[in-house]
């Protein structure tokens, strides 16, 4: 190790220091909410600034195990934004229920640290350890309302299936390590390129590929590895669901980019069919089941499964020879983050009073009860549907265009994605119908979210609009970040 390696690692060090500072503040002023939130947000702001100061460089650290490039910077910024937004939304939900915010913020920032480490991993072992650092705090957060049986149930399911899938992924990595003799991503890629040039791949590699695909598909909640998702999402406290639906999912795609694209890139002809099948199953099943849901949180859980499918189309497009698939994945990840977190934020605002369910009937007349919340929810839902000119439209457009350019079976996949987007309109717009065409319940109290919450909601709303009206801004960033060799 060189001392200069610490410079490349600076964003992660800052994130860890932020989490530690939040805990220290909580020791100094136990139970005080404002100091903990302020420390967390200021620390995250510094972390973002440090990431930006490193952006544009490409450097490796720790003997090539960790790499700072455009992809790392893009994902790091996204993860920091996810953490900051979650903290802004969380207190409105946690405070009325008597749940502490300091632990929440600290655990969340530790999780984000893991995700940032995933984004820069160039070594299979580091990748695995970073992935675990990302998901372990997630189990904790899912069970954060520990006196709520649903929260506990969701957390246990998430934990059991999550650790199971980690073991499966690790077993797959063991095969690859055994056959290539290295855990370094570039060495693995070089060895696999040689193996692939000889024609058919060894049975051990095929086995490893199967295990790794299953492990990563669990983490990103792709069908048929999605069973934990609805229960974990519905049971978790709503701000946690907001985090779980974007943080670990984009983290799993970061794993896919570092593992499948960078390390297993030479084998892409072998994993392309698997990804096509996964993508087709994931979007179709996610959307079909979402249609039948009456609970909005559960509906958004299935919708997040469907969105995993759309993002997988981008991965398939890359494997089909269209390099723009990677920047399409990144664009989708960023757009999805803002619109989905915004939608969950509106549910959080509705559930501020303990005991309010996330049933669709809760949304009745929201447009009249609170015009701003109703309008923003409609904006997020339309964006999730993929209506122009909102961010969600461009996200789908880039993915689908990349797939069509790749041609072959991917054209069929692109058509399937478009059909799915049309089917998804049904269940997203059903909520809009409830908000504007039903009368609110007689006893519905006025909604008054906190100031920080409003700021967060404004950020997600503006991002959804601006990235929709001027997609070139985000596209420039995702294209610069998507030049991943492999």
């Amino acid at each position: 190790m060189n001392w200069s390696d610490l410079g490349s690692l600076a964003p992660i060090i800052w994130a860890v220091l932020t989490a530690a500072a939040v805990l220290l503040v909580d020791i100094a002023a136990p139970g005080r909410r404002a100091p903990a939130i302020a420390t967390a947000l200021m620390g995250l702001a510094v972390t973002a600034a440090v990431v930006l100061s490193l952006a544009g460089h490409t450097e490796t650290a720790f003997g090539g195990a960790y790499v700072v490039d455009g992809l790392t910077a893009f994902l790091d910024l996204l993860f920091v934004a996810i953490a900051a937004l979650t903290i802004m939304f969380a207190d409105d939900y946690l405070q009325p229920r008597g749940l502490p915010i300091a632990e929440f913020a600290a655990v969340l920032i530790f999780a984000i640290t893991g995700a940032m480490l995933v984004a820069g991993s160039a070594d299979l072992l580091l990748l695995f350890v970073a992935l675990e650092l990302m998901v372990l705090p997630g189990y904790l957060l899912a069970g954060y309302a520990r006196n709520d049986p649903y929260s506990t149930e969701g957390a246990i399911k998430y934990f059991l299936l999550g650790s199971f899938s980690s073991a499966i992924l690790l077993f797959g990595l063991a095969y690859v390590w055994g056959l290539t003799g290295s855990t370094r991503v570039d060495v693995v890629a070089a060895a696999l390129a040689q193996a692939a040039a000889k024609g058919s791949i060894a049975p051990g590699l095929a086995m490893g590929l199967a295990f790794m695909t299953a492990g990563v598909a669990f983490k990103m909640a792709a069908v048929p590895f999605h069973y934990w998702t609805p229960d974990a999402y519905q049971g978790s406290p709503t701000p946690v669901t907001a985090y779980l639906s974007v943080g670990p999912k984009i983290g799993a795609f970061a794993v896919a980019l570092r593992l499948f694209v960078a390390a297993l890139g030479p084998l892409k002809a072998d994993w392309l069919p698997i990804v096509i099948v996964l993508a087709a199953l994931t979007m179709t099943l996610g959307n079909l089941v979402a249609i039948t849901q009456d609970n909005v949180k559960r509906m958004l859980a299935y919708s997040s499964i469907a969105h995993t499918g759309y993002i997988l189309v981008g991965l398939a497009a890359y494997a089909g020879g269209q390099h723009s698939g990677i920047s399409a994945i990144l664009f989708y990840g960023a757009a999805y983050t803002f619109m989905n977190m915004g939608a969950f934020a509106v549910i959080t605002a509705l559930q501020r009073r303990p005991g309010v369910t996330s049933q669709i009937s809760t949304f009745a007349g929201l447009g009249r009860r609170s015009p701003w919340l109703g309008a923003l929810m409609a904006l997020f839902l339309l964006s999730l549907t993929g209506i122009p000119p909102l961010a969600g439209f461009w996200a789908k457009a880039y993915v689908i265009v990349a797939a069509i350019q790749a041609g072959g079976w991917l054209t069929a996949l692109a058509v399937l994605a478009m059909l799915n987007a049309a089917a998804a309109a049904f269940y997203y717009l059903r909520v809009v119908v409830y908000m504007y065409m039903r009368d609110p319940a007689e006893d519905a109290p006025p909604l008054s979210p906190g100031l920080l919450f409003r700021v967060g909601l404004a950020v997600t709303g503006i991002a959804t609009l601006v990235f929709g009206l001027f997609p070139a801004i985000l596209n420039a960033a995702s294209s610069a970040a998507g030049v991943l060799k492999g």
Partner: protein
Amino acid sequence: MTGIWYVLGLAAAGVGFVFLVIGLAWVLSHRNRGDGDKGLPYESGIDTVGDTWGRFGVSFYIYALLFVAFDVEVVFLFLWAIVFRSLLLGGLVSMGTFVLVLMLGLAYAWRKGVLTWR
């Protein structure tokens, strides 16, 4: 086809490892069998009841957690102490930071009242 044997071999090794570790732990933890007096508490304490592989109260987990944290810390401290001279000041600063972060965890647990028996 050496490839097939590689797949089977690694799968067998993976399954075998699980049984090996649990089996070894069982063998080691049961080696007092036949000499019951060895298992009795020394001078004072409550007589042991049942097997150590039974269930424990969940309130013990926090001690297990803290124990593991500090146990692992000692592993690192030991290696560091051996090469202490050649690491110069950098080594002292690194290890100081490491221990400080761990102590922060302990201080936090203490302040939160985790160490008080309930």
